[in-house]
């Protein structure tokens, strides 16, 4: 199982702040593509964190990971 956290406009668009995905071997790039296909949002500017660490497109997601989809931040 992979837990996917959504924030800000992504959360509003999907209508959920959390999604559960059955585990399958996939990279960050694969996940972004799946999300884009399913929920019709652009992921070009979205950063991904795996277990609270920013991850690169080629990083693999493992079973049990918490994956956050992080749209451009605007704190401060």
């Amino acid at each position, binding site marked *: 199982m992979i837990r996917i*956290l959504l*924030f*800000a*406009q992504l959360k*509003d*668009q999907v209508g959920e702040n959390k999604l559960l995905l059955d585990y399958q071997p996939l990279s960050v790039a694969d996940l972004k593509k799946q999300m884009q296909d399913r929920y*019709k*949002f*652009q992921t*070009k*500017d979205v950063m991904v*964190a795996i277990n*609270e660490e*920013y991850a690169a497109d080629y990083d693999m997601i493992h079973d049990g990971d918490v994956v*956050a989809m*992080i*749209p*451009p*931040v*605007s*704190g*401060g």
Partner: protein
Amino acid sequence: MFDIVTTPISIDHVMKQVMHHNAGAVVTFVGTVREMTGEKQTLYLQYEAYESMARSMLSRIGKEIREKWPDTRVAIVHRIGRLEIGDVAVAIAVSSPHRQDAYEANRYAIEHIKKLVPIWKKEHWTDGKLWVGNQTETVSFKERGGVARL
């Protein structure tokens, strides 16, 4: 002290975290909610965060600063939830024996917060609302009928 809070920030308290006998210079940055951005009037802001990660990112920025400027002390507090005009959203205090280090390290902190720390603000304007899109505030993800135009 690196924290995300939902209650008003005491700037005095944040500064006190870094003041000590051998720090002659303390530079503080305070970010407040601005009313006008160009022609647009903000009514209030709603900040949300990926709290656990935001806290650990703030600590990491503090750690990087102490590595780059070894004699500094750093405290950062960011508030989330609903903020009104004039409210303090973030306070960053850096102390150092050397004022140049204090200015530079403080600047480093806010620039990195604005790029990397998972906190988002939704602006509520007189004519609508939107999630502010990126750290430079040049891109806006405008909500229209529930679907963002990107």
